[in-house]
């Protein structure tokens, strides 16, 4: 019984006695047993030959994950479709409405999307072995439909050629200083799930009137949360209001003059789950890929090459990086984002006019 709604409907149709026995058990199906990567699964995946991955992860990292998978499982190629999480959500909706089944595995930096997809019965339950063994329970869907694939921080940042470390803002409040007017770049919640999640967290903890003041600072908007660190590195703006921490690290690794700022009010925390669609055209390749994504190998690659943070218990954070536990974060609440999403977008557009 994979589908929650289907099970309810079945209950209504069933006889009283049968219904009583179902009601006695918890209403949702239990998470499926963890699946190991078997030669049979690999062979089945190889027959399908490819897996299509919709993801907002910055291309150099997502394509590297794909290449690592292809190297490990020759014969199965990965098609990475990268675009902002909010656009992914819109496109998946559009495709499903037209009966197009193109996507196998999806990642989104707006965890609210998974609440909707699960509610609509679009996801397939699947629990890779690593996920069952090495990940904290609170970051997994109890029905095994999705789980946090990566932990992101939506950080502030500065260009250290344009701003001295001691002069850089330390908090959200500092950014409102008149000296930063016209010098700030930020992402847009209409495109980026990371920015959407962060905007919700900030509006809840710091308040909308903060954004009203920020709008007076002549902020330059870009679309994705991956773009502000790059604009910062170009020297186009001195301060990044929000953006992906991992992209900033990547840019810094390749010689970019950028540094993160963890605002004293707290850094927005963004959990990005992965899930398999029930209608995946390549179901076995999807499972193999999902297993790979949660493996220590892939997670370590994401940490080392991608600058990301992992929930995998065996994966080591990179030396010299501030550990997640030392950073004050703003609490994530996917359910609230799901409920308030439209209102947040409307309000944001009203304030920033874009």
């Amino acid at each position, binding site marked *: 019984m994979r589908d929650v709604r289907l099970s309810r409907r079945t209950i209504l149709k069933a006889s009283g006695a049968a219904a009583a026995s179902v009601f006695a058990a918890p209403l949702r199906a239990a998470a499926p047993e963890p699946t190991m990567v078997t030669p049979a699964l690999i062979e089945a995946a190889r027959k399908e030959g490819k897996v299509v991955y919709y993801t907002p992860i*910055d*291309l150099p990292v997502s394509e*590297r994950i794909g290449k690592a998978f292809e190297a490990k499982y020759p014969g199965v190629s990965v098609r990475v479709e990268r*675009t902002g999480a909010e656009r992914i959500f819109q496109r998946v*909706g559009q495709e499903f409405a037209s009966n197009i089944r193109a996507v196998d595995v999806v990642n989104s930096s707006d965890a609210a999307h998974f609440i909707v997809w699960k509610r609509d019965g679009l996801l397939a339950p699947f629990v890779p072995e690593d996920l069952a063994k090495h990940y904290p329970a609170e970051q997994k869907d109890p029905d095994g439909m999705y789980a946090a694939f990566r932990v992101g921080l939506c950080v502030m940042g500065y260009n250290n050629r*344009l701003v001295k470390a001691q002069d850089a803002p330390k908090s959200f409040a500092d950014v409102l200083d008149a000296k930063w007017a016209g010098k700030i770049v930020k992402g*847009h919640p209409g495109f980026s799930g990371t920015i959407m999640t962060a905007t919700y967290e900030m509006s809840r903890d710091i308040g909308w009137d903060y954004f009203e003041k920020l709008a007076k600072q002549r902020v330059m908007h870009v679309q994705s949360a*991956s773009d502000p660190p*790059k604009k910062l590195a170009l020297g186009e703006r001195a301060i990044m209001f929000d953006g992906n921490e991992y992209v900033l690290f990547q840019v810094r690794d390749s010689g970019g003059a950028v540094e993160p700022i963890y605002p004293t009010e707290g850094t927005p925390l963004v959990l990005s789950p992965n899930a398999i669609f029930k209608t995946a055209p390549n179901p076995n390749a999807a499972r193999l890929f999902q297993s790979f994504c949660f493996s220590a190998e892939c997670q370590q690659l994401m940490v080392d090459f991608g600058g990301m943070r992992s929930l995998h218990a065996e994966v080591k954070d990179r030396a010299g990086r501030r550990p997640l536990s030392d950073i004050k974060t703003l609490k994530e609440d996917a359910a609230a984002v799901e409920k308030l999403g439209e209102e947040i977008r409307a309000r944001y557009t009203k304030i920033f006019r874009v």
Partner: protein
Amino acid sequence: MNLTLVVSVSPLRPTFRLDLSWPILLLFSAALCLLILLPLSWLVYYSLHDRAGGFTLANFEQLVTDPIFLDPLLTTVILATSSAVICCVVAAPMGWLVARTDMPLRGTVRALVTASFVTPPFLGAVAWELLAAPNSGLLNKAFRAATGAEPDDYLFNIYSLPGLIFVISCYTFPYVFVLVANALDRIPGDLEDASSILGGGAWTTALRVTIPLALPAVLAGALVAFLQAMTLFGSPAILALPAGFHTMTTKIWSLFQYPPKLELAAAASLPLLVLTVALLRAESFILGRRGYSVVGGRQGDPRRVPLGRWKWVAVAAAFVVLLNPVFLPYGALLNAAFSRVPSEFVTLDNVTLHNIEFVFFELSATGIAFKNTLILCTSAATIGTVMAVVIAYMTSRKAIAWHKALGFLATAPVAVPGIVLGVGLFLTYTRPPFVLYGTLWILLIAFVTIALPAAYQQLQSAFRVVNPDLEEASRILGATRLGTLGRITAPLLRTSVIATWCFIFVGVIRELSAAIMLFTSETKVISVLIFDLNESGDLGAIAVIGILMLVFTFAVVVLINRIPGFGGVRLRNT
């Protein structure tokens, strides 16, 4: 030539041959109706209904009262008007220099204008970001280095309304240039000779004969530029967000963010439609009475005004203009393709092949996007040209009763912004009986529909030049309409037909606004790929793909024009 004569002549022919002309002509008419009326009807329907499907005017009410719609509308009007004025001021004199003076390097200038036409506006916008972003732009850096200005000083700010107007003008002025230059090409020397014989000097002739004759073309050019700027999505999509405003096209696109507000988007597109129709009416009202019958069978070569010493000034000015759409952006793209930091000049320290490696060996969408684009370009160009030839034939020879309506239908898509057409097509072809979303067909339909007005106009004006006498001779001798079209008319129009093919081919490569609505991961095209790369700021990869795309386009256009028998075609006819 009328039908009764055909009927009375046919029985006299010795052999019986079935005339398929009528069924085929009717088929084309029906296809056209389907292609254009269907999406437009859905648009109107959606704009008048609420989400639950009930009739309402609330969408329009919100449109005229809510500042989030009024601001973009005002911005768009300012943008389109300024671009049209700039295009005319720059392109009309250039067209005259190339067509009617002895300025050196005229052919080169024409070719370079073609190059700016071939450059997709979104690619141009990215290139100008690299050049003129206030802090990281190469030109601003050079300016600061040269003058020792403060770090925050800049010469240009591309992230602004004037910046956007500038970029749009860069890639819209070829339309005006081509219209003006072609019109001037066609004005025969006889009229000017007459002026000289009557004692008019070179300048008097230019001022009193040539320029007035070219004025309709300038006016038409202004209109085309206005409409292009108004409905353009590519450049605003790149520049408007960082600049902090919306144009109507980006606003309409943003209405498709989740949850999509299709009704509002449909309503928001109708002002553009109304404005376009009104302008087209105004144009025909102004030009209506003046028949400039300048094209006859027997004409003298155009006379060239000797510029004397000024000719070098003129050619320098033309090249300064061409810096903006061609030399500077291409240079910036080349630089970004090989630089570790796209906004830094390539030096031995930061030269890299990483971007090329990334595009070819890591980016998994490169291959499929190029393949799809190639398929769509060639098929849309071929189908679109055939349709345009047949429709232009029907309307210019009044071949069927409803030819005026047909002409109107073929021109109608010009009034619909690509993005709105994309929406209309999306609404039409995601439901039975035509479920085409997710296939290349829906993109093909979109591209053909978008290309049709210009292709049709171009061939229609070409038909006007061919005297119907030749066709009538063929018909009297017993050939069918289609037979005549195929054997007499089309060969006479060869140059225009090939030019139309190239025009559509290039147009499809440039197309972003409808593609962005209609693509899926399997039907991605290069323009969408570049747009997606821009979203995450991967400028180096964009530069590589953009250069590849330009090389590919130029190669095809040049090759087509070199095919034996096709020879001598110049893209100037587009």
